[in-house]
């Protein structure tokens, strides 16, 4: 038995969780065909969260059903548009259930009448009295002489109608001097109102009591010591106080509404909800005549025995089993019938200016060979392509009428992934975590409080805001990755770096699947001839004598740009006509410092800084024309670099720090420098490139071998396998 809990609510209480083999918070179906799906209250919870189950014809869907009281009192329960919408939404989704265990015949009849449910799907299971309210073995009801009060089943909802009982009590001579207890949670103003009603009817407020916050033992004693219980409600699908009173050995009078006549069949114990006089007569008989009282007691005594936990449970199961034989036995879905899987992909896409968006677009193309891809994105202006079976906003993902074999949320450390993140946490499914840490996302998109909450949970200690601010600026010092919520919600979790996967497993006990990063920028290595490189160098204004080093991508402190400028200084000091190009938009937080350092070291003409994002054409010009490249990361969480990927694809002799190179599984022509970055050693690495001549004739064979193993096609196959689909069987 698996419990599906709404992640937006409190966790399941331990006393309830113990009934289940597993408790999950993802609403994505991973149930096998012919499983049962049971909803305990289909009119209460959002059916869209579980639409995946409801729409699956191979799953047997059962609902407990209580009532349509809202329809009977629309002015009270449906006068607010939102309430009406919520009700009608749940009302509509009832269609998808296979069987209804109604709590009473009356509620079952309403289901058939108002919702046009096939009567064969409906049966009555009832409601069980709690064990703690059952009569212990051998206990006899208390004698009339030991009972002092009348008990009224109340409650904050006006339909409970305790006023009827109070007025009737006030008008009944036999009830003079008899206390009347109205149980239920009443705010003070409501109690005052009832006292006024009672007093106006002639009642003595000294006899009126409102017992509250009763434990089961106190409640049972309240029933047991009552002369009678009155249930004056205007509408009830069942009325558990009737059974509780019976279990305590106390006669009951009921309003003649809803399921009441099913439980108390005697007409002379029934009254209209506003028929004070009829109720007064009933009260006069039962309170005033001991023989009458005893007779009613004997009549009601056995009632509760049909509503024990065991009996109700047995009726429930028998009803379900009887109807399950009629359910259509449908084979397993598309996968087992060797059809193309249907995937929902939640991701940013171009024109969103994000490396992940570019990557998704490139990798979805070959993926479409193996699956139908239904894209959910909040990137505006996305152009449809034949690879996308459909394109819709992320908000539509939970409501899609399609049944998806898997859903994949593509996540990264930026605002582009906010809706995908929220989707994952609410609905589960697979997730592809592009970034090794999510601190910026949490802080900027979800706010300081949430960031601190997650940081504290992951650290196992309260994390002050000062620590968080420090980590934002010095991400090398991050002790945690801010991936706990993703790791918990995702099934499976996919990452691109084996180093990162180890970190996640160590921190969160979750073993991600590693999907080596694909080379997604097509590089025609054959076209990178000496002539083409010269042509592009001329276009960029570089001389033949210059040894150009390029670093690609957004320029931020964690890529150590200052140290690159120092390394350039060393090279020039050593007689190398080095030029450094930072081919990417320079972050505002470091722009001034870089300009200043460049000036101070006399490198204004030797260090090129971009004032805006590099266009694709400019990027490719640099990739082809440059003599060498360098990509660094000052934090070590297994993060990857799309730029390093491009350098490898272009067979550019590159320098990278060890951690980044290993995370990327970089080939040998990527020279490693220590993670403790030293411009001297970086400059020495470039000297090594110069001496080897790699900058003149690029290591094409190595690059080709790497490309073959990291092709988009290979990535697509690995992706499908990671998601649980055996592509080989279909190819």
């Amino acid at each position, binding site marked *: 038995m698996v419990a599906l809990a709404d992640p937006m609510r409190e966790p399941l209480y331990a006393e309830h969780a113990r009934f289940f083999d597993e408790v999950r918070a993802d609403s994505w179906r991973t149930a096998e065909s012919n499983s049962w799906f049971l909803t305990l209250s289909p009119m209460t919870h959002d059916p869209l969260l579980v639409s995946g189950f409801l729409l699956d014809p191979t799953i047997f869907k059962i609902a407990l059903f209580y009532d349509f009281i809202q329809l009977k009192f629309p002015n009270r329960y449906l006068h607010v548009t939102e309430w009406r919408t919520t009700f009608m939404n749940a009302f509509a989704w009832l269609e998808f259930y296979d069987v209804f265990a109604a709590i009473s015949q009356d509620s079952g009849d309403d289901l058939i009448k108002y919702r046009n449910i096939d009567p064969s799907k409906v049966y009555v299971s009832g409601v069980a009295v709690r064990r703690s309210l059952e009569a212990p073995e051998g206990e006899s009801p208390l004698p009339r002489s030991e009972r002092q009060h009348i008990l009224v089943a109340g409650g904050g909802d006006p339909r409970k109608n305790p006023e009827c009982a109070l007025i009737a009590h006030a008008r009944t001579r036999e009830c003079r001097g008899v206390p009347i207890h109205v149980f239920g949670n009443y705010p003070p103003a409501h109690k005052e109102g009832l006292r006024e009603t009672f007093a106006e009817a002639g009642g003595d407020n000294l006899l009126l009591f409102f017992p509250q916050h009763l434990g089961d033992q106190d409640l049972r004693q309240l029933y047991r010591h009552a002369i009678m219980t009155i249930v004056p409600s205007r509408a009830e699908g069942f009325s558990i106080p009737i059974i509780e009173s019976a279990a305590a050995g106390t006669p009951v009078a009921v309003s003649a509404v809803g399921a009441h006549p099913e439980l108390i069949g005697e007409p002379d114990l029934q009254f209209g909800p506003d028929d004070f006089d009829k109720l007064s007569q009933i009260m006069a008989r039962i309170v005033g005549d001991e023989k009458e009282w005893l007779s009613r007691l004997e009549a009601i005594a056995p009632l509760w025995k049909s509503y024990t936990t065991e009996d109700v449970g047995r009726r429930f199961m028998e009803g379900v089993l009887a109807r399950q034989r009629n359910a259509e036995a449908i084979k397993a879905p598309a996968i087992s019938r060797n059809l193309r899987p249907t995937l929902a992909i939640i991701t940013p896409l171009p024109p969103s200016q994000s490396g992940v968006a570019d990557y998704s677009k490139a990798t979805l193309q070959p993926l479409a060979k193996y699956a139908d891809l239904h894209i959910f994105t909040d990137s505006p202006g996305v152009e449809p392509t034949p690879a996308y079976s459909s394109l819709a906003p992320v908000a539509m993902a939970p409501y899609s009428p399609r049944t998806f074999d898997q859903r994949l949320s593509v996540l990264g450390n930026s605002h582009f992934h906010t809706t995908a993140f929220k989707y994952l946490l609410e609905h589960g499914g697979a997730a592809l975590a592009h970034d090794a840490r999510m601190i910026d996302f949490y802080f900027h998109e979800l706010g300081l409080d949430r960031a601190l909450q997650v940081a504290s949970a992951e650290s196992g200690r309260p994390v002050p805001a000062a620590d968080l601010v420090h980590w934002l600026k*010095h991400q*090398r010092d991050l002790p945690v990755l801010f991936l706990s919520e993703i790791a918990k919600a995702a099934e499976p979790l996919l990452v691109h770096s084996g180093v990162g996967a180890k970190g996640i497993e160590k921190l969160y006990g979750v073993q991600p699947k590693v999907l080596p990063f694909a080379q997604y920028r097509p590089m025609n290595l054959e076209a990178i001839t000496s002539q083409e490189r010269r042509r592009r160098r001329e276009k960029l204004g570089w001389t033949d004598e210059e040894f150009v080093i390029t670093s690609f991508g957004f320029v931020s*402190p*964690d890529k*150590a740009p*200052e*140290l690159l400028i*120092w390394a350039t*200084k060393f090279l020039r*000091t*050593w*007689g190398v006509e080095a030029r450094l190009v930072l081919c990417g938009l320079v972050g505002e937080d470091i722009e001034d410092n870089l300009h200043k350092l460049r000036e101070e*070291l006399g490198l204004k003409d030797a260090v090129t800084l971009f004032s805006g994002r590099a266009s694709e054409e400019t990027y490719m010009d640099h990739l082809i024309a440059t003599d060498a490249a360098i990509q660094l990361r*000052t934090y070590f969480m297994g993060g990857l670099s799309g730029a390093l990927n491009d350098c490898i694809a272009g067979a550019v002799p590159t320098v990278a720090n060890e951690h980044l190179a290993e995370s990327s599984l970089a080939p040998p022509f990527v020279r490693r420098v*220590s*993670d*403790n*970055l*030293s*411009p*001297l*050693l970086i400059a*020495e690495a470039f000297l090594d490139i110069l001496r080897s001549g790699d900058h003149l004739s690029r290591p094409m064979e190595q690059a080709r071998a790497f490309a073959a193993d990291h092709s988009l096609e290979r990535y697509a196959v690995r992706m499908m396998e990671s998601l649980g689909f055996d592509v080989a069987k279909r190819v």
Partner: protein
Amino acid sequence: MRPIIVDLGEFYGAPLRTGIQRTVCELLAHWPQDVPVRFARYDPHVDGLISISSQALAFLIKMFGKNTLSPAEISAEARMMDAGIHSAKIDLYPEDKVLLPELFYRFDRVAFYQRAIEQALFQPYMLIYDFVPWLKPDLYGVGGNMYLFMPYLRLVMAATKRSYISAAVRDDLAKQILRGTGDVQGPTITLGADGIDLEPQEYTADRRNIVCLGTLEAKKFQDVAFEAFRSLPPDPSGGKLQFLGKIPSFLQPQLAQIVEYVGADVEVIDNPSDDEIRGHLRQARASLFVSPNEGFGLPALETLFCGIPTVVSANLPSVSGLSDEGQIRLETVDVSSVAAALMRLRDEREIQVLWSAAAKLTLPRWKDFAISLATWVAKN
């Protein structure tokens, strides 16, 4: 002759008893009387040098090596002594000579001297200790903070007057940093070996402990020493391995095992005073200084000066140029080579030979160092 001005900013502002500050302290204590000198410190408020009073200086020298006050308290006390004395910015002229016997990274202080060189405002004279942070950054764990250290290196490269504590350091500058693009001329001025101020030691058979002097840091390979010692059978005579040095606030993982070890055969004495060091050396059988990553390696030399044999890395600059008497030199430093050396030290015959040989060594003194350095500045 104009007095040589000695900038003691770090010694004055943060007397942490590092190896470099020990050198500075010895320089002050042994400055030749016939070389005029004035002691000062860089003050960012005036972007220049201001004098340190002789009273404050005497206090700093007196408190160095004692643990009675914290470095911050010592510095505060020195400032209090100077507070009552009007210290104007020292006017500097092209003929003035300013000696920089310290390593410092403050951007403004570095920029002050960089300007001096570029504009010939006065002549800085630098004493260069080593280039380990730039050439072997893993040993320092600089992380992403290397940009803080670069201006100082640039200053060294721009300097025209440099002296070095060893030929190895000069070689590093020549071969790996300047690479033939600049002049590395300048004297090698060997550090003194007599800083411990311990009477000459003599061997007795009850000397059982092996002493490792120096701050606990990864580059000193103290974890290798620890593991080597632990790999041996226990010394029947109860000899211990003792680490005498500061335990830094951030301890690298491989060194944490030493501090956390609870056995009686290994001891860590945190931030020992000079008296405590002398006390332990009086019972030492030998010293162990196996770091292969030192700009100099003064502790090895100092224990030899006291007559105590030592185990060292063969490429330790402080012993290059010396005969190998009284030393076990390791070509490679790993657990097995250090363990083998420790076993040799347990052999009675061998240890006596080592003690005899150590007693014959002639080693440099701080007085010689101070005279050489002061004379170099005065005459160049």
